[in-house]
């Protein structure tokens, strides 16, 4: 469906076809060469160590690294099953964030983008406003969010009190109470994350040819019909991409929990990536970080391939 069809008619001689193939190969090469070179240098070369590091440990007596085989890996797995380990929570939370991203934030963004696309009054103003959180550094945003929910100076608590719902405010603070810390963190992600997707989906929707819409309208198509049968399928490839990016969040999200709750209370909001960052920072443990990193790649690869296969079936590519 999407393959580039060789369009040299069979009448042409062999020589010409070969020439066409060479031209094609050259073209492909010219477009990929520089990025590939960049990739080799800046990624492969600088990360060559990581795999080796995961099989090593730092030896204080020699001031260098020594090989310890799979010890780091077995250690990681045993620490996983320790009674007070925060790793299971970290994995659980990482998955929560993925589910949130793909099944809450993305659908909400889609609806929002759709209504903006349908020329909602003040649509342009809304679009700029929704995009605001994406432009601001996450450090500042999380700081603002924490202020809003602070017990002494936060506006949210004052609001609740004035509505007579004061007893619902947790004594330990919104981020200090086990039951509210994680949910509130998820709320933050929704609040700050919608704009990014809206911009991309708006771009995709603006590409939909108007004739299809117009002819549908003539047939008496309602707005919801339009959304489900036309808009959604036609921006399918963008949605697939965003869904895939939502999967990578499992292994990379750490800034929000780090900045808002510091992984607390008592590890309640930890994620896998936060674990890696902390192990490097506080214990200077490059080797353990490398091990976990490699494990992430090993686990992540089949997940990515599987998700991609599912998405290809659910969202076939339409060319237009």
């Amino acid at each position: 469906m999407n393959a580039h069809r060789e369009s040299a008619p069979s009448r042409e001689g062999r020589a010409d076809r070969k020439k066409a193939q060479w031209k094609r190969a050259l073209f492909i090469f010219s477009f990929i060469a520089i990025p590939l070179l960049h990739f080799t240098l800046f990624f492969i070369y600088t990360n060559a160590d990581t795999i080796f590091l995961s099989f090593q440990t730092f030896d204080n007596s020699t001031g260098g690294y020594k090989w310890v085989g799979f010890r780091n890996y077995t250690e990681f797995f045993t620490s996983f099953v320790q009674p007070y380990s925060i790793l299971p929570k970290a994995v659980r939370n990482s998955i929560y964030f993925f589910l949130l991203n793909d099944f809450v934030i993305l659908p909400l963004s889609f609806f929002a983008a759709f209504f903006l696309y349908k020329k909602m009054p003040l649509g342009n103003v809304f679009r700029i406003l929704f995009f605001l959180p994406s432009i601001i550094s996450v450090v500042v945003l999380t700081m603002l969010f924490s202020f809003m929910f602070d017990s002494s100076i936060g506006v949210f608590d004052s609001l609740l009190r004035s509505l007579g719902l004061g007893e619902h405010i947790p004594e330990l603070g919104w981020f200090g109470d086990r039951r509210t810390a994680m949910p509130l963190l998820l709320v933050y992600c929704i609040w700050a994350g919608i704009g990014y997707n809206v911009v991309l989906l708006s771009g995709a929707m603006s590409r939909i040819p108007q004739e299809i819409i117009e002819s549908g309208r003539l047939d008496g198509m309602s707005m919801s019909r339009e959304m489900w049968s036309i808009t959604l399928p036609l921006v399918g490839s963008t949605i697939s991409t965003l869904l895939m990016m939502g999967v990578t969040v499992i292994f990379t999200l750490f800034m929000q929990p780090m900045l808002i709750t510091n992984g607390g209370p008592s590890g309640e909001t930890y994620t896998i990536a936060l674990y890696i960052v902390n192990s490097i920072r506080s214990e200077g443990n490059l080797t353990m970080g490398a091990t976990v990193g490699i494990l992430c790649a090993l686990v992540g690869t089949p997940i990515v391939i599987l998700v991609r296969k599912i998405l290809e079936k659910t969202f076939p590519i339409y060319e237009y």
Partner: protein
Amino acid sequence: MRKISILLVFVLCLLTAVGLIGCTGPTQVSEDGIVVENEGDAIYYKDAVSPTVLKIAFTEAGFGREWIVEMSKQFVRENHDVRVELEGDPTLANSLFTKLDSGKNLADIFVPLNSAWETYAYKGKLEPLDELFAQKPDGEDGLTVAESMDEVYREYCSLSTKDGTHYYAFPWNTTVTGIVYNKKMFRENGWEVPTTTAELKTLCDRILADTDGAVKPFAYPGKIGGYFDYIGTTWWMQAVGLESYQSFWDFENAEIYDPSQAPASGKQVALEEFEKFFKLETGYGVSGSMSKDHTTAQMDFIRGEAAMIVNANWMETEMKTSTPEDFEMGMMPVPFLENAYTENGEPVQYNYTTAPDYMIIPAEAAQKELAKEFLLFSVRADMLQLYTRLTGSPRPFQYTIEDDANLTEFTKDILKIREESVCYFDFSRADIYMKGYAKKYLNGGDPYSALVRGEVTPSRFCNLEYAEADKQWTTWVQSSQ
């Protein structure tokens, strides 16, 4: 549209060029010919001919840069052939280790906040400072650097590597921790500074009664367990004495976690004391403190919602721009436990210092000898004076701090506590600790938040630690090889 955007880009690129060329900061020249460019980027003698360059990269944090600029100016005054180039960076520790690993663009002296320098000493990236430690900054009649330094710092700065045992780090500053209190509020209400924990309890109840619960005894940053640990550890030391506390840090065997004997018995006593004041039910804490960080907790304190706050000597400098003129901040030493460790019948006052901030010289630095000269210079009596005067903070050396109009009441409190206490901070070079297996608190880190919430009791926590250590000790020893 396109034309406008191209024009816009062009104009802005022009501005960049102008911005970069036209604007360097102010240059000042003093009467004795010392030139200071842009608040310290370069400090040199105006008539110097090809001076040797000394590069110093320091953490530009709570103390700002005045102290090192003044020190450098004096150094240049006494050494006309030196040009000091300063680089201030609030997050120096983030890039320091990358730079050391790569060996490129090294300053001659790095001054970071506490971070793990030992790995780099092991790797041979740090210059040994033994000669420096043996020198006498104040002339023949004075003490050597090593003799003048607090003992615990001396031990900390030394390390056994493949090249032998040497000194690799140099102390920058020292801290004093404890309970910061609102002097004015205390005075107005007739409250007195408690010396024992029994008195502290009475005080807390009185604070609640006198103000009808409007003012709480304590504000605290619940998100950051470290602040609690200041008083927790001081109480631990009070319970068993310094020597016994130090024995914990030798990490000899799992028995160090056994709460039925010292040193862990002290840990349990300290945690029980902590519970008495900070468990949520006591009502002594400002509501919601468990989700606050140090800034919001400090805000509560400044606004008078609490009479005291667990903090350290940097609080005043940190809050300089936000504290109202008439606010009187004081620090009290941590009150004595009931059966505090005594020597000669008197309870010993301890103070838990935070892990040290330090200075190092890279092994591949360009001007190592000059760097050592500078460090020696910085601990001369007059320079130590200068430091404390400009930062309000002490350095861990022996020197008399003259009463100065520039020292605030708060600083005086701090200096007094330091003088009267035995100061100590935690560190250990045991493999099992450095590799992250045995820790100060096992099973997920410090128990303070759990204690506040009443999720665990001190005795249960300590017993679980012991069980865990007992089970795992041999594995840990093997894994840390």
